[in-house]
């Protein structure tokens, strides 16, 4: 890129915290293109950016919250979903997006993941799955395929991994889709759709981690991993989530698997309240804002 075009900047600059660049992600990582897909998908959704909040946990993907120029929360490991739950219920006008990794969401945060899906909390969860714990140097994770090597499965993984879309669907998610970081156009469209879907939506994005997972599993560069995605991804919309397991270096079924309607937590609560108290009682969607004063409060 020439100096002149660098100075002109990038059309996404307005939506990123330029003062936080360069980011921490490794060469060949999928997070840059996934973040781009998220931002362009978000812009196409027409949602007011002042009302969109990103909540992340810990890990490489957890850093997304720190780079987007939106209200954003970088919380503790595994806890993005319950934090987002409280935020959404307290302020229903917000569109709450949880952006985190497979280890964060499915291992340490697994309990929160299934319960938020069960309750059908109105939020979008973007789960970036790189099959290992990248930030800490490539350890075994909840999605590591059988026989894959990681620093803590040096002889090959012997644990059955979670099939994330199946877990989400079985727990009650109303929208479940999966792409890889290579499917940038499709991923962008899916993100727009997921953001506009009412209820608990999950987008899993398979993403390269060349310096650790890739290196230990014979795909040592980002290009190797992208080539693997291109040659092995099979688009199958409406596939039964139980059939979308991923074996080591095997086929990756991608597409939109689930898109159904189900009342959200707030819908059911409002219905119950109306039944109990009658229509004149304010709904659960409108908690009163506390009195606030302009300026710093006096001591």
């Amino acid at each position: 890129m020439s100096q002149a075009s660098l100075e002109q900047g990038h059309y996404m600059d307005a939506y990123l915290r330029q003062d936080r660049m360069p980011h921490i992600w490794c060469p060949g990582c999928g997070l840059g293109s996934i973040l781009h897909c998220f931002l362009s998908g978000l812009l196409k959704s027409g949602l007011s950016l002042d009302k969109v909040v990103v909540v992340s946990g810990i890990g490489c993907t957890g850093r997304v919250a720190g780079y987007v120029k939106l209200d954003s929360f970088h919380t503790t490991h595994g806890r993005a979903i319950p934090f987002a739950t409280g935020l959404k219920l307290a302020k229903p006008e917000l569109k709450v997006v949880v952006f985190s990794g497979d280890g964060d969401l499915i291992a340490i945060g697994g309990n929160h993941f299934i319960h938020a899906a069960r309750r059908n909390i109105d939020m979008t969860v973007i789960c970036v799955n790189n099959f290992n714990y990248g930030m800490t140097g490539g350890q075994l994770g909840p999605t590591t395929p059988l026989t894959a090597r990681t620093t803590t499965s040096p002889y090959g993984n012997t644990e059955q991994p979670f099939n994330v879309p199946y877990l989400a669907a079985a727990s009650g998610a109303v929208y479940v889709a999966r792409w890889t970081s290579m499917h940038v156009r499709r991923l962008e469209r899916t993100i727009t759709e997921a953001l506009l879907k009412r209820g608990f939506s999950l987008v899993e994005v398979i993403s390269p981690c060349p310096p650790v997972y890739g290196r230990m599993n014979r795909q040592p560069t980002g290009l190797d991993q992208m080539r693997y995605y291109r040659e092995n991804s099979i688009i199958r919309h409406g596939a039964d989530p139980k059939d979308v397991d991923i074996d080591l270096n095997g086929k990756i079924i991608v597409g939109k698997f689930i898109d159904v309607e189900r009342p959200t937590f707030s819908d059911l609560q409002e219905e119950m309240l109306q039944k109990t108290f009658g229509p004149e009682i304010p709904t659960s969607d409108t908690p009163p804002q506390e009195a606030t004063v302009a300026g710093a409060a006096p001591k």
Partner: protein
Amino acid sequence: MNGDVACAEGAISAGCRFFAGYPITPATEVAERMAERLPEVSGIYIQMEDELASMNAILGASWGGVKAMTATSGPGFSLMMENLGLGVMLETPCVLTNIQRAGPSTGIPTLAGQGDMMQARWGSHGCYGIIALSPSSPQEIYHLTIKAFNLSEKYRIPVLIMADEIVGHMSEKVVIPPPEEIVLFPRRKPNVMPEEYLPFVPDADLVPPMANAGEGYRFHVTGLTHDERGYPVMNAEAQDKLIRRLVQKIETNREDIIEIEEDGVDGADVVVCSYGISARVSEFAVERARQEGIKVGMLKLITVWPFPEETIRKIAQRVKAFIVPEINYGQIALEVERCAGVAADTVLVPHMGGGVHHPESIMDAIRKAVR
């Protein structure tokens, strides 16, 4: 009403409109009351999947601009420690009630303990300041819950209410004042344009104003060590600046935060220093000791953290000893001893939990101390 219910009513009076919790003896009645009451005032009750989630949910709700609380007991308190730390780091107003039971581990779920007092101070990893209040009756827990919400907004910090099973389960008359008599501290809002807003630039009292999510400020906050912009900074200088402020915003405002009750301390030879249900038993023992002609004072700690160091230091110059009854093997007694130093003796009267002291055990300690 019982203390658990009074705590819930105090929260409603304070304007709390969000409760996230998980059932646990002997704190469940707080959640039950909130589940019943919050819908009546357009609030949200949600029962989370565990206490980790409960603590996070109230932090999220608080950033949504709604006053939020949770309630638990020892085992749940341990789980909440993780995100109590996040609340401290993000400077998030909220209230956490611990109806203490006998521990460690599952202990005696249905009987009292005061074994979590040091956990309240130091339970989350790292170094930070904290505020904890200790009620000794249902009426007091009602008032202290309102006070806890006010302190949490004023100092942007999770405030702990360290009650115990007996206070939680005893039924006494509770007077709920009319709303116009209840003074509430409103959230400090930024008075700069959104593009100029930096989330952690403090006011003179070291507490920064707080924008809520969705108000157009587009701020970022993180549990990582951060600068005034809220951005992570991984070095010792940033750590020094942030942690000093998090500790000092409590330390420099001690006078405003600390509430204690003194009775007959002037001219006393010994002073009984206690808190929570143990303070009530102590008051009875002090009364009886006075009937025996002993000059004994009573110092009841309502604010336990920050610890009223100055008060103890001053009294220590004038008395022979402090008697510290508590339902543990010595936690607050260590603080009293630290502040009394060599000026006065500190005598721990421990109870291992599952009940309260017999007043006679406290009187014995008083008699021995004045001998």
